[in-house]
C-alpha cells in the first residue's frame, strides 16, 4: 500500500499471490491437493512429480502424505515431463505439476513426443493459467490452450471452481491417456455446488437457461458469466450459461444444440482470443452451417501488464462489470 492509492482502489490482491479468493465468495483450500491425497489412498499407482513448485501447485499436500511417492525434479520442466513419461511407461500414473507457462512454452516437445505420441497417462496439472497472476508475461499463460490444442490425444481441462477440481481429479486419473488441467490453486472459489454438478471429461453442462443470449464459458469465466447473468437478469435480460470445462475433446453435440437455439453466442474464456475455446466453437459452428451472431470475451492478442488481478481483469475485460457491459452492448447492436 506504499503507493497511497487511498480508499478508491483497494489492491489487496497483490501480484505476489495469485488467487481469485478476494471476491467475498466461499472458497476451499487447495482442492486439487486434497482430492489427490484422497484418491491416492485408494490408488497406489498414483505418484506426484514437480519442478520446484509443489508448494505453489498444492502438490505439497501429496508430498507430505506420501513422501515415498513424491519425486522432486528440480527447476527443470523438460526433465519433469520426460521423467513423467518414464513413470507412465512403467505402469504408474504420474501427476506432474508446474506453471502453465513453463509446461506449454518450455516442455512442449516432451509432452508432444514422449507423452502424447505414445498416449501415455501423464497428468499435467498447471497453475497460473491465463490471467491468474499479476506477474506479467513471464508467468501469464495466455496462450497455453492455443499451444496444446493441436496435440493429438491430449485432453485439455479448464475447471471453474473447487467443486469441479475435486471431481475432476479421479476422472483424470481414470482416463487412459494424457491430460492437461489448468489449475486454480490455494483458496479456490466454490461456484458449482448449487447446480448438482457432476464433472465428466468431454461433457458441457447448461447451468442457466435464458433466451436472449448464450454464454459458453470455461474456467473461472463461468463464475463471471453466472455473476453477469444475475446482473443482466435485473434488467430483464435472460442469459443462458453453458459451462464447458473440457476444451478438448469438445462436446460438439451440446454446443450445437444450444447454439441452434440462440441468436447471439458469446464465448468467454481466460485465454488469448487466438487459439482458444472461442476459435474452436467458431470453427465448429461454421463447419455445421450454424450462424448465430458470434462474439468473444477473451484476452487480447498481446503481452499483458503486470499488476493486481482485479485491476487487470477490469483492464482486459474478464471482470463481471466488463462482461455485463459488453453483452448489453452486443444485444443493443
Amino acid at each position, binding site marked *: 500500500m506504499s503507493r497511497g492509492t487511498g480508499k478508491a482502489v483497494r489492491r489487496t490482491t497483490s501480484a505476489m499471490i495469485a488467487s481469485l479468493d478476494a471476491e467475498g465468495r466461499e472458497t476451499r483450500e487447495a482442492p486439487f491437493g486434497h482430492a489427490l491425497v484422497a484418491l491416492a489412498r485408494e490408488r497406489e499407482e498414483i505418484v506426484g512429480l514437480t519442478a520446484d513448485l509443489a508448494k505453489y501447485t498444492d502438490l505439497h499436500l501429496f508430498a507430505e502424505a506420501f513422501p*515415498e511417492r513424491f*519425486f522432486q*525434479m528440480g527447476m527443470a520442466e*523438460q*526433465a519433469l515431463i*520426460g521423467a513423467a*513419461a518414464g513413470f507412465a511407461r*512403467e505402469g504408474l500414473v504420474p501427476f506432474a505439476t508446474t506453471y502453465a507457462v513453463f509446461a506449454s512454452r518450455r516442455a512442449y516437445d516432451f509432452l508432444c513426443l*514422449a507423452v502424447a505420441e*505414445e498416449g501415455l497417462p501423464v497428468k499435467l496439472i498447471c497453475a497460473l493459467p491465463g490471467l491468474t497472476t499479476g506477474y506479467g508475461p513471464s508467468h501469464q499463460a495466455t496462450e497455453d490452450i492455443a499451444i496444446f490444442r493441436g496435440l493429438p490425444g491430449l485432453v485439455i481441462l479448464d475447471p471453474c471452481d473447487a467443486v469441479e477440481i475435486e471431481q475432476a481429479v479421479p476422472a483424470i486419473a481414470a482416463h487412459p491417456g494424457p491430460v492437461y488441467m489448468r489449475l486454480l490453486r490455494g483458496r479456490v472459489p466454490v461456484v458449482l455446488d448449487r447446480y448438482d454438478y457432476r464433472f465428466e471429461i468431454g461433457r458441457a453442462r447448461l447451468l442457466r437457461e435464458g433466451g436472449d443470449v448464450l454464454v459458453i464459458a470455461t474456467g473461472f469465466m463461468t463464475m463471471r458469466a453466472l455473476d453477469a447473468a444475475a446482473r443482466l437478469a435485473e434488467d430483464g435480460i435472460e442469459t443462458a450459461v453453458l459451462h464447458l470445462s473440457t476444451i478438448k475433446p469438445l462436446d460438439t453435440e451440446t454446443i450445437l444444440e444450444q447454439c441452434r437455439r440462440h441468436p447471439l453466442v458469446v464465448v468467454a474464456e481466460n485465454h488469448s482470443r487466438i487459439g482458444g475455446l472461442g476459435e474452436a466453437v467458431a470453427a465448429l459452428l461454421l463447419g455445421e452451417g450454424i450462424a448465430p451472431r458470434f462474439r468473444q470475451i477473451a484476452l487480447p492478442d498481446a503481452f499483458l501488464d503486470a499488476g493486481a488481478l482485479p485491476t487487470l481483469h477490469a483492464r482486459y475485460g474478464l471482470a463481471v462489470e466488463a462482461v455485463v457491459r459488453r453483452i448489453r452492448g452486443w444485444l443493443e447492436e
Partner: protein
Amino acid sequence: MARSGNHPRGNVSLERRAWRIRRYAVRMAAVQGQGYIGQALGVADILAVAWFHALRYRPDDPAWEGRDRFLLSVGHYAIALYAALIEAGILPEEELETYGCDDSRLPMSGMASHTPGMEISGGSLGQGLPIAVGMALALRHKRNPAFVHNLMSDGELEEGATWEAAMAAAHHRLERLICIVDFNDQQADGRSREVLSAEPVEEKWRAFGWHAQRVDGNDIAALVAAFDRARALSEPRPRVIVCDTRMCRGVPFLERREIAHFVRVAPEEWERALAALDRAEPA
C-alpha cells in the same frame, strides 16, 4: 573371441554378433538405397555387447517386467537397433526387407508404438535420458532391480534436457541407470568437436555426479569390461560409458570415404559392402 558364458545368449562370440548386426543393417539400408548405415556400422559393437553380454530379456516376451530396459534416444539409429533385435530373436529376419517402407514396423526413426523391443520414440534428440530417469525412479519405486540403459549420441550432449536429467539422476542416486554415449564425432552439420565441442566429456559427467568411463567403442573386450564395471559397481551413482566409435566401422571402403551424417552409398556398393563384411567374417 569374447564370449559371454553367463549370458543366456552367450553361445556365439560377441564379434560374430556384431558382424551379424552389421550385415543386417547393410541389408536394411540396401532396401531403401539409403539409411544411417555409417552410424549403424559404428555402433554395432556396442549393441553386440549390450544385447548379448549385458542385458537380460526374453526374446519371446519383449515386454517382460523383469527385462533390462534399453532406450534408443537417438532415433535414427533405429536401423542398428532393429538389426540387434533381429539377432536377439525379438524381430523376424524377413522383416528387415520392410525397413523404411510404407506401413512397416521398422520406420527409419524408431518409435515405441511401432516396434517390439523399442522402449521409447526417440528422434527428438535429448529426450531419452529424461525418460530413462523416470523409468529408473519408477523401477526402484516398484522394487524392480532391472537396469535402464539409454543410448544417445554425442550430439545429444548439446541438448539442455540431457543435463537436466543428468542432475536429477545423480541427485536421486540412480545406480541402476547406465547411459551410453556413442561418440562418433559426427552430427548433422559436421564434426561434433567443430559444431559444438562437448569436451572434456568424462569430466562433465563426473562433475554432474556420475561414474564415468571412456572406452574405444569398437573394442569389444574394452566394452565388455566397461559394461561389467558399470553393472557391478556398488556406488550409488548413475553410470555413463562414453564410447569413441568410428563411423562405417567394418566396411573399409566406406570407412575411408568422407564421413558425413548421411553417408552416401551408390546402388552397386551395397553388395560390395556385404562382400567386405563377409571377407572379415569372425568365428
